[in-house]
């Protein structure tokens, strides 16, 4: 499974390098606008910037998609759907995070309903700077992702499988808005 060296099918390094080069030319993206960065996607998807020149096509179902774009902030309710979409995607899958909201909370850093660090819940391969990144930034991110795939460094999905239970634990705590116990004791001492 996967196109990286060491799997049963990919015994020879050159064979897997060739397979990676072929797969990077047709990254299919899940058509899921999770946040406010989705307004910069239409110019990139349609004829103005035309990302189909790179072979990137918006796919309706996660089953046929490789790249999941987290366009901006994520509320907890959307995070649950994003996790379901992410887990349905086939195994060499990549995540691109748009804007400052996925890096460190962005301007909703004190909002009770948005998650602050995307990396705690799903592995992220490429971050883009910008409070709503421009189309040039988005296309740069796709080019950078292709380079990572070429060098075999875009291994976010393997990290998800390796630390699966840690990720699940973080997600569970976010879904139930769990307050950590120590903070609770400190809270009681304060009163």
């Amino acid at each position: 499974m996967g196109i990286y060296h060491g799997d049963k099918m990919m015994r020879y390094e050159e064979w897997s390098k060739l397979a990676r080069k072929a797969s990077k030319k047709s990254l299919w993206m899940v058509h899921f606008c999770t946040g406010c960065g989705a307004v910069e996607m239409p110019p990139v998807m349609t004829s103005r910037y035309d990302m189909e020149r790179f072979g990137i096509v918006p796919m309706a179902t996660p089953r046929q998609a490789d790249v999941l774009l987290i366009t901006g902030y994520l509320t907890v309710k959307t995070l649950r759907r994003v996790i379901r979409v992410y887990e349905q995607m086939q195994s060499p899958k990549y995540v691109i995070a748009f804007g400052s909201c996925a890096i460190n909370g962005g301007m909703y850093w004190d909002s009770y309903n948005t998650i602050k660090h995307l990396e705690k819940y799903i592995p992220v391969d490429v971050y883009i700077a910008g409070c709503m990144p421009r189309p040039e930034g988005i296309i740069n991110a796709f080019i950078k992702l292709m380079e990572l795939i070429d060098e075999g460094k875009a291994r976010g999905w393997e990290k998800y499988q390796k630390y699966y239970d840690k990720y699940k634990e973080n997600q569970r705590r976010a879904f139930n808005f769990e307050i950590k116990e120590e903070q609770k004791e400190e809270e009681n001492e304060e009163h």
Partner: protein
Amino acid sequence: MSILKPLKAWKHLAKKPHTIKYPYEEHVDMEEKRLPTDRLRGFHSNDLDKCIGCGLCGKICMNKAITYEEIPELKEKGLKGINIRPVIDYGRCCYCGLCVEICPTKSLKLTPNFKLISSDRKKFKFMPTQLVTKNENFEVDLDAVLFNAKDYSKKFGEGEK
């Protein structure tokens, strides 16, 4: 007949497409002017000598994106004000420019550079310096900024004199 009317769209085959083939062509507007212009609100540049470390930018920033770090070498330079300089966390900044409007010595400015892509989260928090200038394809060059205040002397050698 309104069925055949859409066929008029075929005349676009002769026209030049309005696609910007981005990495090979640059974004130009209708009058072939290169965009983005200097007014674009991109990453910061801060003149560390003019800045007096007053902390106003940190107060006005509602995302708490601006924190401060002390640079000891600035004392020898004999600059007035406190020798702390703003460190900007681009995981919080929304590029609104309120800090630039409130800066009393006008040392903090927004440059039109906006391209910064990386897979490491820690690359997005640094101290902007006066070496950050507009480069022609608007990339943020990370060696013109300080990731921690200690290597100020490496970059600005004359600091020790």
